[in-house]
């Protein structure tokens, strides 16, 4: 770093006497701010989660979009308030400070605070907000960073799956469900072929881009039937003063979850280095769609590559060619021996992929009155 303070002297010191009397005085550039309140469309749905057939948890789907389908804001603070009997537990403490959501009927975020003062610990903290398709840890900061899934410059990595025999790390995305240990969480990221392929480095997707949101964010809380309210605060330039607020409600009419989703069958390649087949069974009772999530954890680097298949109600066998297991699609292909390949299925009663980016640009994608999901257990192989 070449810090030559002579320039500083010219700018600050010398200028006091002379140069700063110069004729370069300026004014603030004009700024145009469209009305966020009017231009944004908020949808909120709740439902149940069949968690591997072992528990029934709480599911949310939120869409908060502009007219072009992009996220309505880059920062907001959500608060979900449940009906009587909805009790949050398991929200972890941070640096010894307890999470204020525990024991209450709300799942909240922390509003912006005066810098230098302590911020209360909440489920979403100050990083979590509602975006175009689900809640995400993507609230903006002054670093200018785009907190997209997999951003290597994002806000830290979340570790998943240790309880299932593998470890995947991914920044700027929630592992699910909330309130279970990190080891038991899984990422639900939509990759190709369910969405257009973004793995080719010449396509120009941001470095490390992992995929798209699936829309649902789940919590290890037993959901009673009733009305759930969502409140969003969109901050303005000054702490404590919002530029917009949004309120909506969702109805959980039935606490009966979907049927249990079976793990997919992952077939080892017939010959080493060959294609991998994944077989998904028919959708469980109540589900109208299924998504097969595949994660390739590079054995050499630990990098994750996400794939997804829109498996439909019927399920079926889906194939990933061998070349797809090379995260960078490098040529010649990198050595992927000993990659860990992880596959799991989610059943749902709405079209998870159909409402997702980048193909859906509707300000209000179609959602049923209640959005239920069924999480299947993962199956893991070591790729040979």
């Amino acid at each position, binding site marked *: 770093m070449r810090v030559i303070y002579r320039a500083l002297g*010219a700018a600050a010191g010398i200028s006091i006497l002379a140069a700063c009397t110069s004729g370069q005085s300026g004014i603030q550039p004009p700024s145009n701010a469209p009305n966020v309140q009017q231009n944004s469309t908020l949808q909120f749905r709740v439902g149940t989660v069949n968690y591997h057939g072992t528990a029934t948890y709480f599911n949310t789907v939120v869409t908060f979009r502009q007219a072009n389908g992009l996220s309505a804001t880059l920062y907001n603070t959500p608060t979900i308030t449940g009906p009587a009997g909805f009790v949050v537990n398991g929200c972890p403490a941070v640096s010894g400070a307890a999470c204020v959501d525990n024991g209450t009927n709300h799942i909240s975020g922390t509003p912006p605070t005066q810098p230098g003062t302590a911020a209360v610990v909440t489920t979403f903290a100050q990083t979590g907000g509602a975006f175009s398709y689900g809640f995400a840890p993507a609230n903006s900061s002054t670093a200018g960073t785009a907190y997209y899934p997999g951003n290597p410059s994002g806000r830290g990595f979340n570790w998943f799956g240790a309880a299932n025999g593998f470890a995947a790390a991914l920044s700027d995305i929630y592992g699910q469900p909330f309130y279970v240990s990190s080891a038991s969480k899984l990422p639900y990221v939509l990759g190709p072929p369910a969405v257009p392929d973004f793995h080719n480095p010449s396509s120009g997707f941001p470095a490390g881009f992992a995929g798209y949101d699936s829309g649902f964010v789940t919590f290890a809380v037993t959901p009673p039937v009733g009305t759930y309210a969502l409140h969003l605060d969109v901050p303005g330039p000054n702490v404590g003063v919002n530029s917009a607020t949004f309120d909506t409600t969702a109805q959980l009419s039935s606490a009966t979850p979907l049927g249990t989703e079976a793990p997919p069958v992952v077939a080892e390649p017939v010959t080493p280095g060959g294609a991998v087949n994944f077989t998904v069974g028919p959708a469980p009772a109540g589900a109208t769609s299924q998504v097969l999530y595949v994660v390739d954890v590079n054995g050499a680097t630990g990098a994750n590559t996400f794939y997804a298949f829109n498996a439909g109600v019927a399920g079926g066998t889906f194939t990933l060619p061998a070349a797809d297991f090379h995260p960078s699609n490098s040529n010649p292909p990198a050595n992927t021996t000993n990659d860990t390949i992880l596959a799991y299925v989610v059943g749902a009663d709405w079209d998870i992929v159909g409402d997702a980016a980048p193909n859906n640009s509707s300000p209000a994608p179609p959602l049923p009155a209640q959005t239920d999901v069924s999480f299947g257990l993962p199956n893991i192989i070591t790729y040979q």
Partner: protein
Amino acid sequence: MLNELTHRTKAGLRGAMTFALLLAFVLCSMPSAFAQVITGTIQGTVTSSQGNTKLAGVQVTAQAPSGRYTATTDPNGFFSINGVTPDTYNITFTRTGYETFTLQGVTVVQGQVANATTALNQSLQRIGRTQSRSTAGAFQPTQTTDQYNVNTQQISTTLGKQGGNNEANLLASIPGASFDSSGYPVLRGGREYEEGFQYEGIDYTDAFTHQFVNSLILNGASNFQVQPGAGDASIGNAGTGAINVVAKRGTSPAFGQLEANTRFGRFSHELRGEYGWATPNGRYSDYASVDFNRDAFHYGGSNSDALLIGAFFGGRSYSWANDVVNNFVYKFGKDNNQSLQFFMDNTQFDLRLGYGVGPQGLPYKDTDAFSIANFQANFNGNVFGTGGPALTANQIQAVMPFTPGQRFLGDTVGGANNQRNVENYNQPNMTFKLQYSITPSSSSFLTAKFYRVDSTDLFDFPYAGTSTVFLGDLNSLQGGQRTGFALDGTQQLGSKNLLGFGAKYDFLHPIYTQRSATTALFAFGGFGNSIEAADFYSAANCPAFYTSFGVTCGYITGYKTAYNLSAAQCNPTAPLQVCPAGPVDPVTAVQLPYSDEGTHTNRQDWALYLKDTYSPTDRLKLDLGLRLDGANWRMPACTILLCAPTGFTAVGNAAPTAFAFNYDSDTRQPRVLQPRLAISWQATRNDAFRFSYGRSVQFPAIAQVDVTGQDAAYSAFRNIPSRDPLTGAPATFCSVAPQVGGQVALYQAPCANYADQLFWENQTAVLGIPLTPLKPVTFNNFDFSYSHLFPHQVSVKITPFYNKSYNQIASTAQQIVKNGVGVVDANGNPVLGPSFNTNLGKSQIMGTEFLLTKEAAYGLSGSLSLTYQNEFSNVVPTSPSEDFFPSIPPASLQLGNLYRVGYLSPFVGALALQERTRTGWRINPVVYYNHGYPYSPGLLTANYVNGVPYNLPNTNVTNSSQLGSAAGADRYVDPRNPGTAFRPNIDATRGTPDANAAGGVLTAARFTPVQLTVEYQSPRNPRAGTIGLLMFNVFNQLYGQPALNSRYQPIATGIAGPYSGYSSSANSVQPSFYGIYNYTQRQGNRAYLLTPNNLPRTVELYYQVNL
């Protein structure tokens, strides 16, 4: 291509150059006259009004208060008087049989020929008088180079009163000159260091940065001359133009003035005075001028919210400036044809920020809880990842050195203890010149001068940067000495050729130190190659922070007694330290040395020039010149250890065996030959044309070439063997290798000892590449002028110009080349080496200067100056350092992008009017105008996609390599659906207008500053003095140019978030400091920042009395 051209030119002109040098030396030995840069010439032809006969033997006497000169016309009626001190002369022509005639008011300025051609009448016959013309008007028909002279009256008009000292404003009132976006005056679009500044023929720039040394205080000037472009051959190392100021001299009768003024609107006052005298015979003369300024102001009241007032550099300030000029001349010899001159200028400028508030109550940051917490947070999170143990406050305090001047832990560094403020800036300047001149005959003149400029600034900021951990304190010396001598001469050859020649030699000795205590913790605490800080704790007191990473402590503490580390490095008040007077071993901890920057390069500049002014007729003048500028860089060798490599050859384990350097001999001993050509032609009595071409050069500032750490800072450790705490073995990173990328990091460069290890650790973590040899920047200047004289002394001059630069200095990073093959990363993008200064910059400017003047002793007079300038450069504009540390992103360089520069307003002007009545009143408004400055980041940015450079939509994803961080864009992608680099999904913008190229949008045009003077002097009793009222900044325009808020939090289009203005780690702020609430927020919460940096509206009441 450029290199080829340079070499071809050098080869082809070698013969001519040799001849020119020989000629110059031969001529130097001849009796001659004329000091090229600070004296002028009077010449002309005397004829008879009857029959136009040329008259020989006419006695010509030029008389002015500052001197008397004589000559006799030759058989062709021609006379020439060289070496004339600038002044306004009455020239008397006497010959038997003819009526004695006096030509009045012939003004001589430096470097110019004043024409005094006249016709004499035979006795008893009368003809009309010849009227001389002012040299300050726009119509100068014999002026060959583009040049603007400002005399004392115009200086008064522009600055509002006699003795006005605002040199920056005076400069900005001249065509071709303008303020850059940070308020520094530049010429024809040059960068801050690309211009020459001379006072009394002395280069008034500092030895390290090549910036002005006099704080832009105008004191004692008789004439102010600006020469945009190359000028004639006597001007060198001046980049895009030169400023040449000549001091007043003592006269007979004596003159003097005293002024006292006080200002309202801020606490400020000034005492100024000048006095010049000479003995009646002109042998002794002296001129002295003093200017004492005291100034204190701040924006907003105490405890103002920095967010609201936009101030970020501190609240209250207090400055004082004392400037003393003395110019003594002793003349002797026949007709006083020889002289000795001793000129001296002493400037003391002192600025204290946070004056009257702050430091008295603040302990230095090694006991400040907030600062300590920041250290802990950053070291914990940034060095070793989260989750590890942090250094305790006591552990930090035990090893962090005291800031210079701090006596003990918890000392309040400032206030009553040592009258030190939050931030202190001191700019002294001591310049002197001893000059000998001789005029063997009226047609020849020779001067020899010895001079020295000594200016080393002190930046003493013990509390700077409290919102950040690093660079939190700073104590720096910058500047140095310039010592030189020069010979200049002129010789009239016949009536048509005026020969000028000269040589100079300068020795530049820069001074640069930059100590920082907090940066030491950064440099040696793990942000470089290793963690030397661990060595400074005893093994028994090794922080868990280090042991958790397998590092053992105790290495340096074990040497404490044996090597007798200085007492200052042992801190007896730190909780962990035990430093009794005796040699007790072991101590528990010793303080780290400072992180200390420095430089190791001196430079010798030399120049030779030869020029001829050929005047075939009174209306046609031709200047031909040749100049050779050279430099001898006395810098360390550009070795594998010190220089920035651009490629390397590796052995099997990828350890490089040799580096390739992109430098040649032009960087060490450059010589630049510069032809100059200028022509003037007076087509009619009132119409004139001129054209000039010149190549000019600017040697890089030493600051751009050598920033190598201080060896002496670590000398206490020289006898201690090197040891890398991470490995327990001697360290192997003592070269630039660790900075040039992973592959080269394997290069083994053993450290000679522990001092060497600390030196390179600091170099790696703080300074970067030590040595970046650079070629000189060259410019090709073309300009053309048409001028016209209207009735009533109104004249205009319009000058289109074009200037193209070569080898301009800009930093960039280059792809590392291994065994001839470019290294790429996993994404196919080039692996870049470190950023370093190169000659890859280029720029070109075209524009037009316009000047209108009206001269009158009474009634309306004044000037209108306009400059249009359109400059393109490959440096990305609007970055804060564009004008001083220009840089080019590699992708942009590869694409060959050119941008309109961001530091210039494309159209600027100044109107200075004066209405002087015969009843003693003077009304003097001055208005400056700019058409706005470029400010936007641009909709396109250069970046790589899979190894291919593109101009991509500029978003927070793509612009990271353009402006250094993702915060430099004004468009933000949807974080959940970002799109591609080619088709990003823009989720929000700052809501402000933008154009494709960076800097493509201008700020609003402004008339600023505006000042008004009303003054009265009794016409019946002028000695009673002058009383005046000067209102500066009439409309109280305080705020500078909007700058992109790099701490902007986007919420939605046009909506900023509440953390805007704070650093990305929003908790790293301290709520109150410097007496300004929210000080450490430092930046505002809007898309662009506006900072007050102009003086507030001030009403100045002054009284001047003539002595």
